[in-house]
């Protein structure tokens, strides 16, 4: 792929930078929460991983106010062109999490912290604890946390119905966090709804600055020997290339309904073309989830491919490609 169909030379390097609300990203790719552990990567890298960090922003695994041990094993398995997981938001709780921030304080990229909980107060408590810590932290003592992603869409925690499947509950969680912080707020939407724009509207009305989607599709896999539910938590969340067509549809719906809203699109991204498709459907930034499990260098490869795919189509920038699938 070294020249365009019409023979014109390729734009050697399209401008990949995008603005996710107030957050400036070097390129559109971020990791999807729960699928990429910065410190694990750093310890497996021969060079300076912090200098070579591949994503434009880092979204760590969801943090809750109290420690959670997560669901019983097994927690993951493969499905046709995808996988299912029921981790159950295992995390050490926000206090212990904050205590380790020094270990990656030197990350240059912006950080968007994924926040979980069962009730509005629990979400707000995490946001407040982090805001408080950040305000007090000495310069250079903490990573550059610039926003929060409210995970109201995890199908693997037993707080009854998902918050993100209900407009009122969504508004309450977002509203409580909006009161707690002036930082950038994303609401992460679940695909397990009839109309994703209804929940999106509730989140935006309650003060969210942008939307991330999709989280996983609630799903069931059986053990082929026993015919019992395979996962320890019985059901889990489906993701990977299998779900990409559903994710693209939902991102397009949200982008059409809320044209000026920052959107992080994700679900099944495995190649640069996949990422470009999300951008074409209106995503500002693109999350890479399960593809991280397929190779260490997946983000680098996807980014290189995205650059090529943009150039091959004559786009001068990633921003130019945004929403091109939506215009008729």
């Amino acid at each position, binding site marked *: 792929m070294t020249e365009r169909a019409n023979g014109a030379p390729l734009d050697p390097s399209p401008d990949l930078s995008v603005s996710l609300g107030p957050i400036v990203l070097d390129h559109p790719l971020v990791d999807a929460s729960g699928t990429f552990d910065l410190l694990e990567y750093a310890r*497996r890298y*021969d*060079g300076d991983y912090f200098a070579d960090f591949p994503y434009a922003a880092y979204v760590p695994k969801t943090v809750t106010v109290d420690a959670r041990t*997560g669901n019983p*094993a097994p927690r993951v398995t493969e499905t046709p062109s995808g996988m299912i997981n029921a981790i159950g938001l295992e995390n050490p709780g926000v206090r212990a999490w904050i205590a380790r921030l020094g270990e990656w304080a030197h990350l240059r990229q912006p950080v968007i912290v994924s926040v979980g909980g069962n009730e509005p107060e629990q979400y707000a408590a995490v946001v407040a604890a982090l805001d408080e810590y950040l305000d007090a932290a000495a310069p250079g003592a903490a990573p550059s946390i610039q926003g929060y992603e409210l995970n109201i869409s995890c199908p693997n925690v037993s707080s009854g119905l998902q918050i993100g499947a209900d407009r009122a509950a969504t508004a309450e969680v977002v509203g409580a966090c909006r009161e707690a912080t002036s930082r950038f707020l994303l609401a992460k939407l679940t695909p397990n709804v009839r109309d994703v724009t209804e929940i999106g509207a509730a989140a935006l009305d309650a003060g969210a600055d942008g939307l991330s989607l999709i989280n996983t599709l609630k799903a069931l896999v059986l053990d082929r020997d026993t015919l019992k539910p395979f996962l320890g938590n019985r059901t889990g969340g489906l993701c990977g290339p299998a779900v990409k067509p559903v994710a693209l549809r939902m991102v397009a719906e949200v982008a059409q309904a809320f044209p000026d809203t920052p959107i992080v699109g994700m679900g099944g991204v495995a190649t640069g073309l996949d990422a470009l498709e999300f951008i074409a459907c209106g995503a500002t930034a693109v999350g890479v989830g399960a593809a991280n499990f397929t190779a260490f260098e997946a983000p680098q*490869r996807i980014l*290189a491919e995205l650059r090529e*795919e943009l150039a091959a189509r004559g786009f001068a920038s990633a921003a130019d490609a945004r929403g091109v699938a939506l215009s008729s």
Partner: protein
Amino acid sequence: MTEAGHTHGDHSQWAETSHCRVAAVRHFGAFAVLELIAPRVARRAAPGQFVMVTVPGGGSFLRRPISLFAAHADRISLLVEARGGGTERLTRLDVGDAVEVAGPLGSAFPTEDVSNALLVGGGIGCAPLQYLADELSAAGAHVTACFGFRDFRSARAAGAFTIDRLWVATEDGSVGRAGTVLHLLAALDVSPGTTVYACGPTPMVAAVQRWTFAEGLHGYVSLEAHMACGTGSCHGCVVDTARGKLRVCAEGPVFRLDEVTP
């Protein structure tokens, strides 16, 4: 179209990624020993560690965790049992085929200051014990291995092993002694201070654990868990231990026998 995988950047910074070639294949029924030219992995490897193998052909989304069966010079070997679609395709690899592996990953069997070692394996769980036996023997330890298999078919794996003192049992009595590996252990004369190394199905590990404690021995176990990343990111592979839930791919796969609750 940009094909996935064709525009990879430079891997050299990834300690644990290797594009490698199959140098030799030996088949034992449903099992295959794959010898791979993988100098970067071989250089760092220790017994008990594993690699994540990309299943060639594109039909499998996740990589498969496979133990190191052996490592010499620039080579590693894997003993693979065709159980599902992914391992089936791995056993059909041929000399010269390309494979991608990431590793060595996870914790290794401690081998220091061991003079007497007892290796207890069940089924495909025997796989990591060959490499362990090689290292222990090289360090001068006295190594005895007891392997249990279900039937004739699964006992075909035994043909892949080169351990001097190797006792085999099959549940159907078709190969070696009739019974489980516990019957082999019961018949052994074990010196005090022997270090036990176990790997196999959960009921076997539980039984070996009880036996070890009853004999006043100590030891290690390599556990299996369903994995997504294999590299510590997803928390998919946790097991319950005395230290809480730990990841088999990061804190494990090797744990102290007395800290796991199989």
